[in-house]
């Protein structure tokens, strides 16, 4: 086999984020190459470079030995590269055949688009590859699984022999996934295509790929032959951070139940079930960690508990109050604070100052309001300065625009605000994503302090080490269901990894 694609010292920096850090990688002709890593590890960025959407900040890319100089999707298509994006690139109001032909339309006469021919060509492709779909249906009317087929057909129509699939199974049912894999095997075997598949689902890596590359925080951690590794090894490569932490002192016994979730069903943004019958409870003075690989319902679960997402079925109780279907404001009033998963979209007002961001949620408090309406700016600023110091926020002072701060400091603003409410319940999601090691230690200490003070903490993190370090109990979520529940000191990371990937005993039972 020869090198089909070669990345040499590729780096890609977006404002403030180094998404790809000096990556060198070769992909061979006719293989299925899996690229795994957590969200934000830089997989999609690397593939967007290959597809010409991003121009790398540094480094070079070779396709079939030829150095790529022009980075554009058009050039990539001409090089025979096709990509199925995580968010489908389809025009909803066009038919299947029209979407497939877009950019390379068959013509009738010299000017008109030949719809019949487009449909015929589509049907030919469908028959050739066995990807059944109605060519004349409008894309907005067909299911996500079928839309993905359209995406694949589109790349085949454009004559791709290198196919990039960005998290193709995230939106599929198990059956659809099997069918997809069957198609991949067939095109590799019969058409000698090269397939690169991005995923976090490790069993899929084992099922489909010849070789696998693991990325973490913009770096390529390692490339292995799939037959030489197992899921456990991959999981540890994916989530591990090579840092040894001091032991955190946990004191006190768990008190009464503060969060109770009964048989919860929640849908994702597309209306498909994401959380399927989850029940859990968290006591005061304990941390319940959720260990799950991205996209297994943990985000939707926490959003449902905090009122940010509609609950389809089941019940949520916070501090003895029924929180089902209540607004975030009402649930906060019951005694819950929330550190959200994505601080930029949900946790801060980017264009407001640190002061304003720290004040949010307290703007109606008496001490900040003269006569109940006039905001006492000096008191507010004094309060913000105190928090600023207390939480060791580092930036250009309390008047800085939050959007201009580093990830770690922005997270400190969020945590400072949420922790300052001193509520009995804390829901924390991804507390240290995109945060440097020093700040990470700081957040961990704060979380354990809260626990020792008697807060009930529900924690979700993509970092398994973090979950282990902070939690008293751990539950594993897989495809929206709880697959296991463990005492943190009674199980190893490797065992948890099995439950997270749906292969542990709990899943079999």
């Amino acid at each position, binding site marked *: 086999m020869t090198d089909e694609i070669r990345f040499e010292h590729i780096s890609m920096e977006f404002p403030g984020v180094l998404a790809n850090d000096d990556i060198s990688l070769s992909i061979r002709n006719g293989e299925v190459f899996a690229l795994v890593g957590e969200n934000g590890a830089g997989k999609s960025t690397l593939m967007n470079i290959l*597809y010409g*959407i991003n121009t790398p900040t540094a480094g070079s890319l070779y396709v079939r030995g030829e150095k790529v100089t022009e980075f*554009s*999707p*058009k050039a990539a*298509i*001409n090089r025979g590269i096709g*990509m199925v*994006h995580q968010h489908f*690139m*389809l*025009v*909803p*109001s*066009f038919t299947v055949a*029209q*979407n497939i032909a*877009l*950019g*390379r*339309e068959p*013509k009738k006469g010299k*000017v*008109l*688009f030949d*719809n019949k021919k487009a449909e015929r060509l589509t049907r030919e492709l469908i028959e050739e590859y066995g990807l059944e779909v109605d060519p004349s249906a409008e894309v*907005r*009317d067909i*299911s*996500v699984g079928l839309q993905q087929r359209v995406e694949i057909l589109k790349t085949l129509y454009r004559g791709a022999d290198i196919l990039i699939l960005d998290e193709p199974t995230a939106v599929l*049912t*198990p*059956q659809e996934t099997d069918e997809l894999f069957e198609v991949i095997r067939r095109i590799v075997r019969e058409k000698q295509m090269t397939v690169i598949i991005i995923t976090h689902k490790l069993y899929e890596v084992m099922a489909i790929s010849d070789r696998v590359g693991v990325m973490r925080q913009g770096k390529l951690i390692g490339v292995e032959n799939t037959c030489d590794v197992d899921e456990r090894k991959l999981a540890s490569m994916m989530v591990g951070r090579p840092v040894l932490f001091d032991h955190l002192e946990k004191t006190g016994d768990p008190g009464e139940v503060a969060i109770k979730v009964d048989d919860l069903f929640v*849908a994702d943004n*597309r*209306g*498909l*079930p994401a959380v399927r019958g989850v029940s859990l409870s968290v006591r005061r003075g304990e941390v319940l960690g959720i260990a799950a690989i991205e996209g297994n319902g943990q985000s939707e679960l926490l959003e449902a508990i905090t009122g940010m997402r509609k609950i389809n079925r089941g019940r949520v109780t916070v501090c003895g109050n029924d929180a089902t279907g209540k607004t975030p404001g009402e649930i906060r009033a019951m005694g819950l604070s929330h550190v959200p998963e994505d601080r930029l979209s949900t946790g801060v007002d980017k264009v407001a100052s640190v002061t304003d961001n720290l004040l949010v949620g307290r703007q109606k408090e008496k001490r900040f309001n003269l006569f109940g309406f006039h905001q006492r700016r000096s008191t507010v600023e004094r309060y913000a300065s105190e928090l600023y110091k207390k939480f060791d926020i580092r930036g250009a002072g309390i008047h800085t625009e939050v959007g201009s701060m580093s990830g770690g400091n922005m997270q400190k603003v969020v945590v400072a605000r949420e922790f300052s409410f001193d509520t009995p319940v804390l829901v924390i999601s991804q507390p240290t994503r995109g945060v440097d090691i020093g700040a990470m230690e700081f957040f961990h200490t704060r979380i354990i302090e809260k626990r020792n003070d008697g807060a009930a903490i529900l924690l979700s993190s993509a970092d398994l080490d973090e979950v282990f370090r902070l939690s008293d109990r751990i539950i594993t979520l897989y495809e929206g269901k709880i697959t296991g529940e463990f005492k943190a000191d009674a199980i190893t990371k490797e065992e948890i990894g099995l439950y997270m990937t749906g292969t542990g005993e709990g899943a079999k039972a």
Partner: protein
Amino acid sequence: MNNSGPSFWTTASSTLHFMLSSATPVALAALGGLLTEHAGIMNIGMDGMILMGAFVAAAVAAIAKSALLGVLAVIFLGVLIGLFFALFTVKLRSDEFIIGCALNTLALGLTGYLADAWFGLDGIRIDMTIPAMQNAYFHNINVPLIKEVPFLGDVFSGHTAFVYITWLLVIVMWLFVYRTPMGFWIRASGESPDTLRTAGKNPERMKWIASILCGVFCGLAGASLSLGKLNCTFVENMSDSRGYIAFACVIFGGANPVKVFLAALMFGFFDALGDQLKVIIQSDLPYAYLVNAIPYVITIIMMVYVVVSGQRRRERIAKQQLRKLEQK
């Protein structure tokens, strides 16, 4: 019944005749506006584009003493306005609403000011005795055969060339939008620009093209106002909110040329009805104003309907998928 019979038919035919001529400038502008709409640009600036078109058509026709040259000048101007509009909305990424408003204001001021400065208080008067201005294309055309047919002849015959060209353009535009690759690209550039980009076509370029074509169409709409009447002339604020009506038509017709044209006819109908109302109900009250407001209200209702049915559609698809999952 017998008494009102003939008068009913004459009223009806003149109402419909009025409707067709009243709908023409609006339809022409809306045919351009539907392109920018498809390209994902909210184009509020059509009114200004029409106004500038009306001014330049009249001015050039008056100076060059040729209506045809006036129309050619308007096409050239339309390209320039389209480029100007796209420069701000596409290249500089300004707020399209503000740019549209500013364009309207600029047109109102510039045409008013220049008309006065260049042509004096009387405005632009075109000497209709000049042969080139009597060019039959811009006068009312009596369509052979149809004009002989009673009623239909009164309705469909005797319009200016702009009216008939507009009908032709509706079909051409429909073909362009729904049956040519460029039409597909323009639609994709608004609905899903990244898709178009990954298909190797530049969505920004499509927006530029849509904007330029819109400028040309709006310019022609303006020309039909100033040159499409017997007394070719330009008066201040001649567009008289027709750009907004065109915008309403685009929204109402879902940017489909045929439906947009029907929407323009609807506005034209209510305009004509308002005009004929005095004859029909014999009242001193100016009910015409209220009648003219009806199509706007219908447009709002239409918008709500489109949004609600879109939501229903999404819900239905989610439910179908859910059912499929449950079966498995």
